[in-house]
């Protein structure tokens, strides 16, 4: 097939190779010289753009980094998880397994809720670190921490059981790397009074299908009001 090739006109400086080549070499020399000077600085983090990873851990990790999981305890040292199973349900990779147990008498200082997980397993080999579990958790019990070194020797070690999850929490607490409390995302406010019946209906578990038709214009209006 005929291919339309419009020849671009080369300027003189482009036509003789050397001029642009020399300009490029000047640029690379600039980088070389800058980094060459930086090389002589002591310490592992010499070149500003590169972290020498195992030695140089000065790069700041975001406090909300989605790293290794942990199970949080509340300020009284009680486990917060109530084994509701929301995280296991929402997990797209199905990597969480929970066994629910009822809190017995005299265990109030150990578990915060009336139920607690007898077993809580997170399969790191399956996890895709989407963070849905911590989003959905009603008690902010399971969170993803800042730990990002996942190399293990055996497959068994990749299975985080409850003990390891709590250990992760303890370590994070000692290192001061706890995740900050979750910020609630502001949601478009509920429809005003006259529409209450509709809202209540929707709350009763009605499918979004019906709610949407009426909710949508309201939501829009609400946003518009906010703007004003």
């Amino acid at each position: 097939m005929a291919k339309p090739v419009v020849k671009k006109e080369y300027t003189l400086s482009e036509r003789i190779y050397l001029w642009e080549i020399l300009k490029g070499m000047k640029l690379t020399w600039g980088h070389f010289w800058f980094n060459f000077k930086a090389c002589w600085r002591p310490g592992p983090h010499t070149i500003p753009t590169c972290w020498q990873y195992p030695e140089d851990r000065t790069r700041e990790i975001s406090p909300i980094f989605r790293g290794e999981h942990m199970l949080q305890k509340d300020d009284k040292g009680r486990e917060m998880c109530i084994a509701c199973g929301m995280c296991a349900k929402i997990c797209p990779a199905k990597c969480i397994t929970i066994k629910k147990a009822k809190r017995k008498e005299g265990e109030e200082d150990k578990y915060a809720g009336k139920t607690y997980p007898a077993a809580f397993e997170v399969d790191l080999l399956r996890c895709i670190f989407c963070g849905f579990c911590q989003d959905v958790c009603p008690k902010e019990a399971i969170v993803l921490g800042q730990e990002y070194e996942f190399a293990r020797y055996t497959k068994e070690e990749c299975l985080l059981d409850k003990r390891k999850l709590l250990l992760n929490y303890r370590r994070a607490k000692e290192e001061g790397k706890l995740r900050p409390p979750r910020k609630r995302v502001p949601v478009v406010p509920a429809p005003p009074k006259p529409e209450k019946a509709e809202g209540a209906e929707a709350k009763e578990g009605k499918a979004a299908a019906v709610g949407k038709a009426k909710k949508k214009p309201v939501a829009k209006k609400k946003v518009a009001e906010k703007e004003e």
Partner: protein
Amino acid sequence: MNQNPTPQTGHDTGDYVTVNIGPSHPAMHGTLRVVALTDGESLKKVDPEIGYLHRGVEKLGESLTYHQFIPITDRLNYCSAIPNNVSYEMAVEKLMGVEVPEKAQLIRVIMMELARIADHQVCIGILGVDLGAFTPFFYLIIQREEIYEIFEWFNGARLTNTFGRIGGVDADLPDDFEQRWEELKPNVRKANDETEKLLTHNRIWMDRTIGVSAFSAEDALNWGFTGPCLRACGVKRDLRIDEPYCMYDKFKFEVPVGKNGDVFDRYIVRMIEMEESLKIIDQAYKLYKEMPADAPLMARVPKVIKPPAGEVYSALESPNGELGFFVKSDGSAKPYRIRIRPPCFMIYQAFPELVEGELIADLVACLSSLNVIAGELDR
């Protein structure tokens, strides 16, 4: 995939040699395969094979709930996960008829444009590497890291962002976003400038790219090209302007258009698009700052998303082109059918036509300039 690809005429015995390029070949990025019938260096017949990264994403979507599919979309175009997420979310929102709050839309715009810059940086960097110029790759990739840093501080992940939720976004911009952005902007510009200095006017680069795998506008439309590859052919088509979504109609930006549709034009179009993206983010952030701090970020959506039965198609301008999601619902909590319209699927099928008759070196250049990402190609 076929296991015995193209035992074509003159199979190694006559004048022609069949060269199997990929899937483990430096220029094929481990996931593509091209069986080429060559006459010396020139390509007589080219047969691209895909499917090496086929993970059954569409099938997987049918077994997950609407929310659970968001992380899966990260893995489509892994160079820029955010437009994938947003495109999918937009499709479901359209199906449900949900209106996303404006502030959430602005955050989406900011993040998507950042992802666009990152994607173009990778594309141009790889194009340079495949044409033998290693250095610009590093200058660009360093800035991409900084962009990833912003992503990390936004919602905790660098590459597979799982950005946003159906009905809005899951987090507000971090407090230090402005500072990071002001730091990033000149650096991105500088990296682009340096790339331009090293490549654009260098005659070796021009010889390698100008006129290579040129494509006419009619052909491009016929083959279903979208995105930078179509614009390089001279068609001014950008979903951000033609079918505005996410408040894109409020921003002023140029859509660069090439002339020949060759590798050079694709490269230049991407270069200019990065600059335009920077401008869009500036405008979007200005609008964002004007919003009240507690403006809603999520529309009211039920916890269990059950869109009404129906089917919609919604597309947006991803860095590669039109990325569309067709979602068909039967009223249950799981999508009935999700079809992903990946931009480079349509582009890559024209690959034989683009490169046949040219040299092996041009095949590599053409492939890189198309920015074929196997994740969304094979799904």
